């Protein structure tokens, strides 16, 4: 190589290196930024978490929570350790609360319909416009003299929001506040009221019970107040206080609670009430009953001899006597009637039968039994309105009575059978407002969509139901400033009232927060137990905000004894065994629907954490499945993962088969929760909604939708892509889960 060439290379190399160096300098991406507060918030230290006490709004249990907030963003939800309902614990659904707030599919601002109903074609509007539209429509309706045509559909309201809504409706001139929830326990309220005169749900003292006889109550997973009852279950299992409590579960399909039970009694679907009455019969017959009027009971129970019931229920006579003996001789004992018995067309009867059992064993009002709750501190106008139910709403709509429909935080199109025709009711109503955070199956039919604050952004309060034997009031306070352009429901109603004026001018509060505080002030001044806890209201309010609400320090309350009389009960025992839609020759299987442990009635299906949470009993994720006994499946030639068509007289869905040994061979079970057609990217077009194939059958007394009153047939429908997390569920003697005898001796 020549010298000149060498120099050339050196030159080019140096030039290239320098160019690269300079370009590296110039083209550097901008560095990270430090964004200070303009005005500091005294409560916020960047990098240090704040905890706000609030209320979990994802189910009706009413657990107290702590929201962990850092730099204005919610990071985690934890149970409030002081709260009497959940004692610092929290279920999977509650944990997923931040995913509601930060859900990518949340509606970001008020929307007005542009295209046809159901197409989801909306335009953005401002809140002022939205409030104006509502006010104008409501004024027009009021002017035309049909103020009663305003219908409001919400989940059961227990706090001051319900009070506000009711005063709004009353002032406006409507009485149509429909409170609907699929698992709203209407039958339970009715049965307890009819049998014991209780307006509220009682407290089932599982914690202190030593023998729990549960009729299809999945109380550690979905029923009523699962976290509270799970905590109680945990305590019950401890041998500390007079021995370990036993749990006996009566249900055709093993639920999560059933899986933990000591005994599983797979009674034939529809005959659980007969079994309960047969046990009661045995109790009376053997003279184990407590209380008087034995003749009256003998008369009521005459038709339910264990020997007769054994044939009907598929539970042997000896077993009925054994359960009756254990139930009356283990003290304290407790019978619980859950969704399993109440989900028939005549669900009240089953719950009545359970009430009889508790009465005969002397459990009502006793520690470890059924404890009546005191009156909640927030006085509600009505407990559960049995007159206003889905069928009456549909009937009113058919008569053209519905002029305007406001739906708040509820998705009835998804949670009612197609046969109930709610979709057409909402589609045909002249003016529909949806107050919802998500574009769900119901909101898609609305003329106006008002995005709601989530529970982490809003004010509110709640008196949990069931209570815990004491009075509990929970405050919900905003942990973060609203992430989107949303509003709280209370503020919307107050805003409309302000704009309409006139007859609504009585609702004067500037904001719902103010309304709430005023309501608490009133309660504080009237309620001696409340005012005893602090000197001034401001102190009381500060303390309540800090603690998460108010509840008396002493948890012991005077317990009312309640009795069940034979006469009051006998009127409500009818129709046994339960009726089923579909002939058993054409439709050989009983269909059981139950709430998915995380999605419940479908509300959790848009949260990715919950979609990916394996179902505790099947480990299936991201979809629906149908549980079939392996023997039945073998008979039908179905393998696990095969798609099966499930057909009832009223409809048909397809779902993959999961071979489930914990189900009766004559029963199939499908979880509710999936099968959304709307409701965001994680939920939509995933799995099937089994409610679709139900007939619209209600309990005549309460209007509760009967989920288990259908027979179905099953046929193979090709392969599926069911995703489950489990490899094998056989332990193969590897001693993974070891057991010990009850007395605590270590076992070899």
């Amino acid at each position: 190589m020549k010298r000149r060439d060498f120099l050339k290379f050196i030159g080019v190399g140096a030039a290239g290196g320098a160019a690269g160096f300079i370009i590296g300098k110039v083209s550097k991406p901008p560095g990270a930024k430090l964004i200070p507060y303009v005005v500091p918030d005294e409560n916020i230290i960047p990098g240090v978490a704040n905890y706000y006490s609030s209320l979990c709004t994802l189910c009706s249990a009413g657990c107290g929570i702590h929201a962990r907030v850092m730099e204005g963003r919610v990071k985690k939800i934890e149970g409030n350790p002081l709260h009497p309902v959940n004692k610092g614990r929290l279920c999977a659904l509650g944990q997923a609360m931040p995913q509601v707030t930060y859900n990518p599919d949340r509606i970001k601002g008020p929307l007005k319909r542009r295209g046809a109903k159901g197409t989801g074609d909306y335009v953005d509007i401002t809140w002022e416009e939205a409030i104006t539209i509502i006010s104008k429509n409501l004024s027009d309706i009021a002017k035309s003299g049909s103020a009663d045509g305003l219908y409001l559909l919400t989940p059961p309201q227990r706090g001051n929001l319900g009070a506000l809504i009711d005063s709004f409706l009353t002032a406006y001139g409507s009485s149509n506040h429909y409170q609907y929830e699929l698992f709203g326990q209407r039958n339970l309220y009715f049965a307890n009221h009819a049998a014991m005169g209780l307006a509220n749900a009682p407290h089932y003292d599982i914690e202190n019970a030593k023998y729990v006889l549960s009729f299809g109550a999945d109380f550690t997973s979905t029923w009523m107040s699962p976290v509270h009852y799970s905590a109680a279950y945990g305590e019950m299992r401890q041998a500390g206080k007079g021995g370990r409590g036993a749990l006996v579960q009566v249900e055709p399909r093993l639920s999560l609670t059933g899986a933990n039970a000591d005994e599983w009694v797979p009674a034939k679907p529809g005959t659980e009430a007969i079994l309960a009455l047969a046990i009661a019969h045995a109790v009376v017959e053997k003279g184990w009953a407590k209380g008087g009027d034995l003749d009256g009971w003998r008369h009521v129970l005459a038709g339910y001899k264990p020997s007769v019931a054994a044939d009907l229920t598929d539970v042997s006579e000896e077993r009925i006597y054994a359960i009756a003996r254990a139930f009356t001789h283990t003290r304290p004992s407790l019978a619980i009637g859950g969704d399993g018995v109440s989900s028939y067309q005549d669900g009240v009867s089953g719950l009545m039968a359970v009430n009889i059992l508790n009465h005969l064993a002397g459990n009502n009002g006793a520690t470890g039994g059924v404890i009546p709750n005191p009156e909640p501190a927030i006085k509600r106008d009505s407990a559960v309105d049995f007159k206003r139910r889905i069928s009456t709403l549909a009937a009113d709509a058919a008569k053209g009575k519905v002029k305007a429909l406001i739906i708040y935080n509820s998705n009835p199109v998804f949670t009612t059978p197609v046969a109930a025709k709610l979709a057409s009711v909402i589609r045909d109503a002249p003016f529909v407002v949806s107050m919802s955070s998500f574009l769900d199956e119901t909101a898609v039919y609305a003329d106006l969509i008002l995005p709601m604050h989530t529970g982490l952004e809003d004010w509110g309060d709640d008196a949990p139901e069931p209570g815990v034997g004491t009075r509990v009031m929970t405050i919900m306070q905003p942990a973060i400033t609203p992430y989107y352009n949303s509003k709280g429901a209370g503020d919307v109603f107050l805003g409309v009232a302000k704009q309409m004026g006139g007859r609504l001018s009585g609702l004067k509060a500037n904001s719902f927060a103010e309304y709430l505080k005023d309501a608490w002030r009133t309660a504080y001044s009237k309620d001696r137990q409340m005012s005893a806890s602090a000197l001034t209201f401001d102190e009381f309010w500060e303390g309540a905000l800090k603690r998460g609400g108010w509840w008396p320090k002493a948890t012991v309350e005077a317990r009312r004894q309640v009795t069940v009389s034979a006469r009051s009960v006998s009127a409500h025992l009818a129709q046994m065994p339960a009726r089923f839609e579909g002939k058993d020759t054409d439709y050989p299987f009983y269909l059981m629907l139950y709430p998915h442990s995380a999605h419940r009635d479908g509300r959790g299906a848009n949260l990715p954490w919950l979609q990916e949470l394996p179902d505790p009993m099947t480990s299936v994720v991201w979809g629906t499945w149908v549980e079939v006994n392996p023997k039945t499946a073998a008979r039908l030639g179905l393998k696990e993962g095969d798609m099966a068509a499930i057909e009832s007289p009223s409809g048909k869905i397809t779902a993959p088969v999961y071979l489930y040994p914990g189900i009766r061979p004559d029963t199939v079970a499908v979880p509710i929760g999936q099968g959304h057609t709307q409701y965001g990217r994680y939920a939509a077009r995933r799995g099937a909604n089994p409610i679709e194939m139900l007939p619209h059958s209600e309990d005549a007394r309460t209007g509760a939708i009967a989920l288990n009153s259908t027979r179905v047939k099953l046929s193979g429908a090709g392969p599926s892509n069911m995703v489950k997390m489990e490899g094998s569920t056989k332990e193969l003697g590897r001693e993974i889960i070891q057991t010990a005898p009850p007395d605590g001796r270590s076992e070899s």
Partner: protein
Amino acid sequence: MNSLSLIKQLIALVIVGGAAFLIGYGVNITYFYDRTPEQPIEFSHKIHAGDNKIPCKYCHLYVERSRVAGVPNVQRCMGCHKIIKTDSPLIQKLTSYWDKKEPIPWVKVHNLPDYVHFTHKRHIKAGLDCSLCHGDVASMSRITRVASLKMGWCLSCHEKREVKNGKDCWTCHK
């Protein structure tokens, strides 16, 4: 040896030049990163901390309580500058942020990767002086980074000061 043909020579030159370019680029972004980035307002630590002897903790509020020291909020700046030197163009820039109620987008000079757990609180409570890591800020008219903030730099100090568990990975990693 013969001189290379023109085309071969060109190709070789392109290769050499390209390689040198890449090396130059790499050397720059690895070793000659910008330690003194330009800030939205030419704030001078020299005037504040040096000449006027304002203590660090007066503005960096959270340094004893949090893992971050905290940049002063705009209100704190305005607390003095409503009165002091209001005619200076830089202060007018500050005031315009305040009037618009906008935060000032300061550029981060001391940045650590996400997988590093560092807390100012612990270091301040151990009695370390700010200048140990941040240099003589009081003499900087534009803030510049003096420490490498690399793992070896952290370790050498932990080693020298015999920090308890100071060389354990999870003391600083997360």
